[in-house]
């Protein structure tokens, strides 16, 4: 830095150093010093002071009563008792009474203490001197000398081999801690690229848990599906659903603008991933008139009639589409897995 070249005369000339009224006599803005203390009513009138005392005692007594009320409420009200209290609604009698009595018990202790401090304790303002935080030059010199002596005695400056190996050891030892974190989780590998969907897996309706059939799905309706064989009670249901969840709508084939989308649909029935490509919220605010689907988390909007193209919001790429067909039993089935990773984008996604 070249601050030496810059004159530091931009600082105000005088910093307030005086303590009280010792400025120049002719300065109309001089500090007149602490104003004289003005007494309160309580300082002059013992009756007023007594009133304050009674007020404080009353508040402490109210607090005691409120605590008794708290215990009484705890004993009296069953935990599931609901009462109507205007304007709060049908509330738990226990929560309401416990909260208010506890609140009062605490509040009145505080109010009593503050009232006491404000009306009865001395309100004379006192000035306390500050002392510079920086050490005096003598102290600083002493500390530096001590430090040099210590460093000298350790010979850390001279014996560089010791110094360097010590730094090396200290730098390496935390690595053990980092290594220990390795088993926090598995490596990503291809986990984010695949889902449970595979050729021949039927689409199971999330509501009825039965296979979906093309005739079930009318134009303008919305249905959700999971892959056949996934058990909602299984250990990894959540993890698998986090990738496999499907949203199914039917669009008049002529209204589908994207050719690949039309090819991957079955008679206009399209299956898109329900997992938003922004950060992975289950997206399904489907507006059947426009075929737009909105994510409730960050408002990414996709056009389901045009390859689920992003038309608004922070998502970076379309929702992946699952290629579907109909099996021999007339049920909808997947014709393979998604051809790209579902959900949020990540570095290795490509």
């Amino acid at each position: 830095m070249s601050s030496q070249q810059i004159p530091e005369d931009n600082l105000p000339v005088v910093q307030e150093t005086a303590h009280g009224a010792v400025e120049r006599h002719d300065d109309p803005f001089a500090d007149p010093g602490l104003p004289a203390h003005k007494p309160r009513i309580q300082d002059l009138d013992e009756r007023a002071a007594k009133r304050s005392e009674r007020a404080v005692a009353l508040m402490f007594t109210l607090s005691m009563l409120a605590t008794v009320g708290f215990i009484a409420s705890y004993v009296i009200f069953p935990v599931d008792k609901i009462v109507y209290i205007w304007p709060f609604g049908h509330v738990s009698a226990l929560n309401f009474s416990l909260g208010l009595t506890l609140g009062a018990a605490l509040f009145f202790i505080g109010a009593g203490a503050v009232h006491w401090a404000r009306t009865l304790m001395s309100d004379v303002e006192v000035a306390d001197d500050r002392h510079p935080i920086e050490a005096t030059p003598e102290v600083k010199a002493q500390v530096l000398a001590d430090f040099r002596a210590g460093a000298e005695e350790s010979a850390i400056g001279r014996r560089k081999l010791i110094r360097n190996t010590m730094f090396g050891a200290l730098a390496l030892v935390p690595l053990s801690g980092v290594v220990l974190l390795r088993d926090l989780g598995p490596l990503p590998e291809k986990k984010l690229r695949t889902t449970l969907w595979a050729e021949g897996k039927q689409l199971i309706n999330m509501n009825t848990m039965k296979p979906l059939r093309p005739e079930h799905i009318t134009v303008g309706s919305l249905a959700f599906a999971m892959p056949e064989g996934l058990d909602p009670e299984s250990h990894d249901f959540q993890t698998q659903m986090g990738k496999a969840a499907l949203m199914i709508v039917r669009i008049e084939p002529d209204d589908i603008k994207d050719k690949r989308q039309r090819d991957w649909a079955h008679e206009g029935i399209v299956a898109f991933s329900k997992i938003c490509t922004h950060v992975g919220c289950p997206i399904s605010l489907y507006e059947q008139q426009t075929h737009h689907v909105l994510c409730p988390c960050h408002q990414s909007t996709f056009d389901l009639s045009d390859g689920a193209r992003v038309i608004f919001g922070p998502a970076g790429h379309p929702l992946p589409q699952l290629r579907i067909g109909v099996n021999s039993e007339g049920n909808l089935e997947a014709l393979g897995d998604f051809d790209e990773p579902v959900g949020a984008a990540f570095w290795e996604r490509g």
Partner: protein
Amino acid sequence: MKKLSARRRHPLAAVVVLLLALAATGGLYAAFAPAGKAQADETAQSLAIEEGKKLYAVGCASCHGTGGQGTTDGPSLVGVGSAAVDFQVGTGRMPAQQPGAQVPKKKVIYSQAEIDQLAAYVASLGAGPITPTDKQVDPAGADVANGGELFRTNCAQCHNFTGKGGALTEGKYAPDLEGVSPKHIYEAMQTGPQSMPSFPDTTMPEQEKKDIIAYIETVNGDETESPGGLALGGLGPVSEGLFAWVFGLGALVAVAVWVAAHTAKAKKS
């Protein structure tokens, strides 16, 4: 009881009794008649279609076309079914008042009888979902927990966890479901009004719809329990954060001002 006997002498009492009697007769008729009286039914049906056609010509034809074929201002009604009409007109959405991102719920301007006639006429244009019966939409005995599960899978993405509604694109929205009758919820699921997709019986059977209705009534009704106190709109962290700032921090700052303020000084006499 006293009140009731006093009101017996009210000039309108006779009318009320008559209406009740008619309703009861109608109910009894509905319960016992249909099987044997197909003929009468058919006549009533064609009468309703005739009446509905007249209503349609006045209130709907300007946008949906004289034969329900649709115009640039309104979609075709061929095949939407009576359920769609019952929902759209029964919730006041139709007839629409002004163009906009979405046709909102409004005051209903037709009587239920007129709505039924309109529905009969539109249903006659082409087969579609039929207005459900009271029994079909009655949530009594339904599985609330299963309804919750289904609601979170199929509905919550637009209507929020407890059906408080939410935003869609370009000013459209999924409305709050509080106070919507079971029949209208059922019809909405069946027909998919406006932006909403439909959930036909083939993918969401009738019982599941009932479960969902039961769930909505439990978590978003007048009697919904909110054990913790004010529900703050049921909107989640945004309203909670606002509350914490305005009332939480607001109250604490007010108290801090009191704690730090100078006590009133005695006036100089």
